[in-house]
Structures are given as structure tokens and as C-alpha cells.
């Protein structure tokens, strides 16, 4: 991909060894890229280093090796160019919902007038359907509403790249579905580039253009890059009737259950800094004649 907007080159994160012995490698040889406007999900088991990877992309953590290049410049330290939605909403509890958004907007555009900041923030609260509860503090909002305020805050600063660390992990299934739809809507209106961690396979298929599969840690790698060849707009109730859906879903589940453990043994020494293999289980399934996939 020559038009890559975000490029991750040979990234590694190691923790120094406690005493002698080898250092603990969280992940290494991570290479991938994202084009502008792309929605990329990464899935893998807990503890495989997804959050560490996201923190490195955000600039909150430092890589031991390699580089993150965004829009032609290397990432060093956190920046308003990369919005982050954390696992647990992380709204400031002493500020109202609107103030949580406008605080971010004000730090993005420091020369804006108070009225302009307010108007812009209100617009993004409206966008997530919370226009009328701006005066409430996070403690007075439900879990789903808090997460939506977090989404409004992240989108309001119009970052070049939006990073989300299992944003819906703490929500119940019904609320999650609703907030996911909200997210798709906002994403389609803003054409934001998104990198999102999840371990919900259905969520990844619903949201992503492409899903990166991460092997189990330590020494985690990105094993494959799976295209989600399902046309948009996607409806939760519609996509499950498409033949591609199950081909993709099975591929992802199979990876999580089996191959995430054994992948490293199959490919023990691939020292080259190449991007993960691109697979398209959806395309294979699309023809009417259903043959078993070549994998």
C-alpha cells in the first residue's frame, strides 16, 4: 500500500529482564499500515499486548524498537492528532458531559471563543444523541451514555487517527449494540481513520474494513490481516444472513481458538519486516458454489 496514512514499522515492545535472563517481549516485528478513512480492528486474546500496542500508537507508551509513522511524521509522545477512547470511558467526573467535550475542544483550538467551543461541543453531543443531557455529570449518566460522551469527545477534536481500546467492553450486550450503531453513524459522517481493539468477533465484523489478528503473547506478532468483504452500510440484523459473514466469522474464531497459539510454531523465524498476509475469506465465500476454503 503506497497510500498508507499510518505505517507501523518493525515495532517491538520489551520489558527489561528482572535479573539476568532474557527480557520479556510483549510483541515484536509488528508491521502494518492503514489508509486514510479506514476502520481497522485488532483482535487477540487478553494479555497478548493489544493495549500496549495501542498505547504506543497513542504515544502514551514508548516502543523499544521500530517506528509509528502517521501522515509522514514519526509519532513521539501523545498528541491531539490521535484521539484515544479508553476502556473505561475516562471522563473527568467533576465536569459535566458538555464540559468534558468542550475541555477537549478548547485544548484542540486554543484561540476559539467560548461560544464557538460550546457550539462545536454541543454539536458533537447531539451527534451521539446526548444533546439534552449535557449538564449532567458522568455519575448521573448510564454506562452507555458515558461511553457515548467519550466518543463525542474523541470525535469532536477531529483527530487524524482515532484509537479505541475495547470501548464497549464494559457495556451489556443491548447497550453495546446501540452504541456500536452510534459509532458507525458518526464514523460515516466524519470519515475518521480508526484503530480499535476488541475481542468480540461480531463487533469486529460489523465495524471494521479490515481485522488484524494478533497471536498470543508473549512474543506476540500480527499473524494475518483479514479483509471484511461485506458491503456497507451494514446492519446487524442483515449481515448475519450473508454467506460471507460466516466464512469470515469462522476464520476469525478459528484463529482465536486454535491458530493464535500455534501460529508462532508454524512460522518460527520470519525475520523479514513484511506486512501480515492479507486474507479475504469473504471473497471465497461469495460465489454461489460453496467450496471449502483453501485454508
Amino acid at each position, binding site marked *: 500500500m503506497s497510500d498508507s496514512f499510518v505505517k507501523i514499522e518493525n515495532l517491538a515492545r520489551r520489558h527489561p529482564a528482572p535479573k539476568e535472563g532474557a527480557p520479556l517481549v510483549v510483541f515484536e516485528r509488528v508491521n502494518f499500515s492503514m489508509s486514510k478513512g479506514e476502520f481497522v480492528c485488532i483482535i487477540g486474546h487478553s494479555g497478548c499486548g493489544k493495549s500496549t500496542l495501542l498505547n504506543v500508537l497513542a504515544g502514551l507508551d514508548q516502543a523499544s524498537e521500530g517506528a509509528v509513522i502517521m501522515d509522514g511524521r514519526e509519532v513521539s509522545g*501523545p*498528541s*491531539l492528532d490521535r484521539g484515544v477512547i*479508553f476502556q473505561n470511558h*475516562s471522563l473527568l*467526573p467533576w465536569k459535566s458531559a458538555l464540559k468534558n467535550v468542550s475541555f477537549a475542544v478548547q*485544548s484542540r483550538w486554543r484561540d476559539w471563543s467560548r461560544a464557538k467551543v460550546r457550539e462545536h461541543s454541543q454539536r458533537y453531543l447531539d451527534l451521539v444523541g446526548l444533546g439534552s443531557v449535557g449538564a449532567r455529570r458522568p*455519575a448521573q449518566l448510564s454506562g452507555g451514555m458515558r461511553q457515548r460522551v467519550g466518543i463525542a469527545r474523541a470525535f469532536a477534536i477531529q483527530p487524524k487517527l482515532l484509537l479505541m481500546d475495547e470501548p464497549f467492553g464494559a457495556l451489556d450486550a443491548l447497550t453495546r449494540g446501540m452504541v456500536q450503531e452510534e459509532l458507525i453513524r458518526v464514523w460515516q459522517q466524519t470519515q475518521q481513520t480508526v484503530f480499535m481493539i476488541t475481542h468480540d468477533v461480531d463487533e469486529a465484523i460489523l465495524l471494521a474494513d479490515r481485522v488484524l489478528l494478533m497471536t498470543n503473547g508473549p512474543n506476540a506478532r500480527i499473524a494475518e490481516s483479514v479483509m471484511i468483504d461485506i458491503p456497507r452500510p451494514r446492519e446487524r440484523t442483515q449481515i448475519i444472513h450473508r454467506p460471507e459473514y460466516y466464512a469470515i466469522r469462522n476464520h476469525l474464531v478459528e484463529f482465536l481458538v486454535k491458530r493464535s497459539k500455534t501460529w508462532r510454531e508454524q512460522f518460527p523465524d520470519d525475520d523479514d519486516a513484511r506486512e501480515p498476509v492479507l486474507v479475504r475469506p469473504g471473497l471465497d465465500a461469495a460465489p454461489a458454489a460453496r467450496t471449502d476454503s483453501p485454508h
Partner: protein
Amino acid sequence: MAPSSLPLRAAILSLLLLAILLGAWELAVQPPANTHGARVPGPSKIFEHAVNELSDPFYDAGPNDKGIGLQLAYSIARVLSGYLLAAMMAIPAGFVIGMSPLWRRALDPYIQVLKPISPLAWMPLALYVIKDSATSAIFVIFICSIWPMLINTAFGVASVRRDYINVARTHELSPLATALQVILPAAAPTILTGMRISIGISWLVIVAAEMLVGGTGIGYYVWNEWNNLNLASVIFSIIMIGLVGMLLDQLLAYAQGLVQYED
């Protein structure tokens, strides 16, 4: 019968207890017919005295004859000067200690040794160095109110959630903006708790300090009235000390309510 509210029933019970207490006190101090001599005055006498004192609380008839309001004002002024001075030092210092593990470890032994010293133990040294009794009393208030504020600020700042700091970092807040917009409001409830403990201790200590340095203030007044064997005045002063202490505490409790947030 309609069930009355809990606050109402509690108020009734409170008044009942007061009536019993005052009644018992009044009965206990009734002199037996055939004795005479000094006795603890009963509530009625003290009430009489209180009405008399409070009708003109701010009169000033020379060094040994000032109204109760004036004496309390001297004490409050001393407490506030020492306390505010302490807050001005303890809160910034607590910020530094809370943010820096190095400073925390380096200063911890000093804090641990200085904290348990009775503030009055500093009095001779203060008198010798400062050479002014009124300022020495302020210094004693300063030294006793600094520790709870320092320790609570450091603790509050050190335990600000990592998430909030990350929010500040991803929004490119400067260190100063992070301190003022994120850390300070996050730690404010803990800091206010320290300030509330400090004002309580200050009010406890000022009475003792003024008994030592003399001149003016409610502590001096109590001691002076004891020397005059005016027990009604002593008891009345004790009640006033309690009321003012409660007022100071309520002020800080109100401020605490303003910065409190639900996580």
C-alpha cells in the same frame, strides 16, 4: 398517627436530651440549705451570663476587660493567619511530593518526625526566635495545621487515577494546565479533607497557645476568668469555643461539598 420524618424525630430526641441534661445539672448544683461556698453555677446562671455578655460582645474596656466577641475575633484572626500561611505552603509542597516519588521518599523521614511533635513544644523556641508573643501563637497554629494538609495533598495528588493523567496527556495539556485542570480537581476532595482536619486542630491548639502567651484571645480569656474565679464565664466561654469550632468545621464541610465528585 402519621409517621414523622427521621430528622424531625431526631430533633425532638435531641431537645429532650438537652432538657434532661440541663435539668439534672440544675438540680445537682442546688446548694443544700445549711452550706455555703463556691459551687459550679447551674444552667440558669450561665444563661443569664450569656445574655449579658452577648448583648454587648465587642466592648473594649482595657486589657483585662473585653467582650467575648472581641476575644473570639482575636483567636479566629490568629487561627486564620496561621492556617492560611500553612495552606499556602502545604498545598504546593504536597503537590510536589505527590508528583515526585523522589521528593516523597526524601522528605518522608522529616515529615514522620515533625508530625507527632505537639505544636506547643515549639512555643519556647518560637518566642525566643520571633520575640513576639502574638506572632509566636500564629507560628504555633502554622506548624500544627501544616501536616494534615501536606500529607493529604500529597496523598490525593499521588493517587489521581492514571486515566485522568492520560486524558491530559492525549489532549496535550501543559504541565501547569494538567496540574490546575486535572490533578487539582481530582485531588480536591482529599485536599479539602486535610484542610478540614487542620482547621479543627488549629482551633484546639489556639486555646492552649493563648493561655501560654496571654494578652488577648479566647484562650487567655478562659484562663483570666478562672483566675477571677468566674466559673459562669468559664463555662460560657467553653460553649462559645465549641460553637465557633463547629462553625469553622461546617465552613470547610461546605467547601468540601463544592469540590466533591462521584466517581
